[in-house]
């Protein structure tokens, strides 16, 4: 999994590519700690995401909970696999997913 962060005036965008599974989830969690502390507008770009398991979902869920208190969180470029996972788990209701 590769995580890239890009800070702009509008907010912070996190690019996730590769596999987001149990073994890689702690790495993402670590990367998000400072981002969640400072930004008001968080965007997840999932363009390169190949795989997501419940471990990844949990991170997205806790990020959403933090951002709900402070600003906005948007998910974009979610591929079919990710969308299906979101759908199955009811995440489409709680995440803001940008239509691509």
């Amino acid at each position, binding site marked *: 999994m590769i995580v890239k962060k890009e800070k702009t005036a509008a907010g912070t965008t996190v690019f996730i590519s590769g596999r987001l599974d149990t073994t890689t989830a702690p790495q993402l969690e670590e990367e998000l700690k400072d981002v969640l502390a400072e930004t008001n507008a968080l965007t997840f770009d999932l363009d390169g995401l190949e*795989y997501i398991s*419940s471990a990844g979902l949990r991170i997205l869920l806790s990020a959403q*909970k933090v951002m709900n208190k402070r600003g906005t969180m948007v998910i974009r470029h979610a591929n079919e696999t990710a969308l299906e*996972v979101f759908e199955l788990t009811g995440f489409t209701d709680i995440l803001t997913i940008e239509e691509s």
Partner: protein
Amino acid sequence: MGYMLLKMSVTVLVICGLAAALWLLDNKTPFQKMETRVKRLIIGVLFGGAAVFSTHFCAQYGTMALNIRDIAPLCAGLIFNPWAGIIAGVIGGLERFIAGQFFDVGYYTRIACSLSSIMAGIIAALLSIHLFDKKRPPFFYAAVIGAVMEVFHMLMILLTHMNDISQAFDIVSTCAGPMILFTALGCAAATALVSALSGQYKKGWHRTEKADTPISKTFQLWLLVFVSVALLLTFLFTYVAQTRMTLTSSQELMQLNVEDVKRELENNEENMSGVKSLLKQQALALAYSVSNDVSIMGKNVSSEQLQELADLYGIYEINLINQKGVISSSSNPERVGFNMSSSSMSSPFLVLLDGITTEYLQDFRPISYENNVSLMYAGVAHGSGFVQVGYDKSNIAQFETLADVTTVAADRHVGKSGFVLLTDEDGTVISGSEEYLWRSLSELGMTDSPKQSGDFFYSTLNGTKCYCLFDKINDSGIYIVMPTNELYESRNIFAYEIAFMEILLFSVIFALILQLVRTSIVSNLQKVNRSLSRITGGDLDEVVDVRTNAEFTSLSHEINSTVSTLKHYISEAEMKIDKELEFARAIQLSALPDRVPIFADRLGFNLYARMKAAREVGGDFYDYFFADADHLVLVIADVSGKGIPASLFMMKSKTLIKTLAENGMMSPARILSTANKELCAGNDAEMFVTVWLGVLNIHTGEIVCSNGGHEYPCIKRKGGSYELYRDKHGLVLAGMETSKYQEYTLQLNPGDNLFVYTDGATEATDIHNKMYGTPRMLETLNKYKDDDPQETMEKLLNDIDRFVGKAAQFDDITILCVGIPLTVRQNRLELQALDIELERVQDFVSEIAEAAGADPRTLMRVTIAVEEIFINICHYAYGGQPGDCAVECYVEDGKLIIRFIDSGIPYNPLVHEDPDITIPLEQRKAGGLGILMTKKFMDSVFYEYRDGNNILTAEKLLSAPENSIS
């Protein structure tokens, strides 16, 4: 008479001898092998010769020549051959005719005799064919046939001489008795002799039981009785009636004659009285003449002189009586000295001595000194005495002739030989034929004279028995006399004819009725019986078809409909049984594990089992199941017998073995001996079962086996051939309670196959009853030994099919093959339950799924599910401690099956409540999502806890349509 009997007996003996000789020739010598046509010709000609012999070896009897020619054709036809009879009859008959026509041998009866001989042959032939089925008749039948044939002969004589019936009747009445008797005797003797020769009487005479008497025999007997009685009665009736009629008509004839005679006599009455007075005058005149003549003769007239004088005048007697009333001289010297006053008859003449009376006439009176003589006396005075002249009847015949009296009877005929006698008041015949004339009836022998006119009576006249009618006119008696043999001649002819005809008629009726009974009842009954015995023999398609009359048609119909109803019921019952057997079969088959090859990709072994059931429910079975995670139990068995009992016993055996193995009994020998004891208990049906049982360790390939009376297994080592493995057999199960079973261990390595089968395979039979056999089975197996075991098995079954061809399959054919494949796909991954092993697990599953053709989408889902489950185990199974985990993955029936096995805390993740995915964000929890996704992404997920292991199995259909989830 004695000579006649001797000659007839000789003829009978000759024919008997010929019959016996021919029978011996036909049964004891090569003659019997000759062609039938030639044989019957020879027999016919020989018997024809015998008939000719009979014709010329005739016996004289009275004025007749008796011969019994008809025996020969009858014997030929009845004893030997119908055609021989006809030939003999024709020869005998023709010869008889020729001899009669041209050589004057019995000319008179030539037609009747030759005809009856020919008929004898024909009738014998007909009877033999139609009444006796060409078998020799019993001798009493032969006797009756002979007798009837002669009756026909006699009747023919009468019928061919109807114009000359009296002579024909004479012949018949003389010949009938002896000829009928001897012909009957001859036929009976010849038949009995031949029967005795053939040993027919050796069996002795047994009275047949009523139940064994053929219907035709009973019929024959009763028919014979009734026909005989009817014949006798009709004959008696006609005889009496005929006697009565003959008598009546004769009486009428006689009465007519009496009337005629009376009328004639009445017409002559005047004549008679005239003649009477004339007679008296004449008598007196003659007396005067005699008186004159005596006067001329002188005083002493001698008897001789008076006799001369009497002869001259045609006078019976002349007496000279002196004045004392004593006969002084007489033409009859004995009369001299007779005192006229001494008899009442002569004393009236004494009036002539009174000198006044000159003449006295006394009418005819019987005289005292001579019997049966009546005299009329005339006396005239002569000197002091008188002359007495006596006339007898003949002396006055001329006068009666004058009165036409004598002709009245003499010219009259009554019938052919009957006649009329006229008597005067004294019973002396005054008119009639010469032999009776002027003789008194008592002298002629008529003892019983009638008193009343119009009386009929029997009497003897001159030694001939006669029937007479008496009547009277004035003093004359009229006797109409009819000899009895003429009186009854016509009746006797008639009686004979009637008797003969009736005998013939009743014989024909007898034969016809018998024949009718045989054809319309007996033969039909036999036909029905034949059909019935075929039906009881099991041929329900047999149709009874006797339609010669209404009764048999309806009987046939009834039998046919009964049979068809029966057939219907049987087929219904059969269908029901078939259906039940089908159910039983289905239940039995469903008890067997799925027959498709299983485990092909799993755990490194192949298994193929198949049972090809016979139509009937049989007792074969195979079974395989896991006794635990490592041990696969394989069973093949064959229960003795077939049908429901076998199938029930099979179910019992199968359940028992499986139960024992599943409850931890791992030793095949122990399983078999325990099962044996169980099966022995209460085995009332005395059934048994052969069992081969193996327990395969699926990891090591070690298989422990035990054989309870079953066929040798076949084993093929890698690169080698299928060979029989001659293992140690125990006794069949359920045979003996104490049976011991041994076990042996085989090591199966990759490329090895173990094959077991039931005897249904080796003993499959083709239409020629040839068995498939073990050698051919091995040959076929080895022909395809390098194929996939499954294919090898299928080819073996095909070969057996080809061999059996159209023959019915009698027994179940069951085969089972277990093998270790050469290339084993690793289906099991054992590793530590650590997060870092996740990728290894996912790769292991992906590889198998990809190889099975899973699409990327499915692959992704499966991968996610695998992670969720595995991570779950890593984090929770061992409570944070390190632990082991095994993952098995294989494809079966198009399904990807993934199994996770851990020995951690027993926990079923599936009972965990799914997270609510509809509630607002703040209330959502992070847990449970993984299991939720697993459930959603896989088709089925189930948990079990076994042998201290948590086992979670997830299945995914690989060919599922896209987007099946959403």
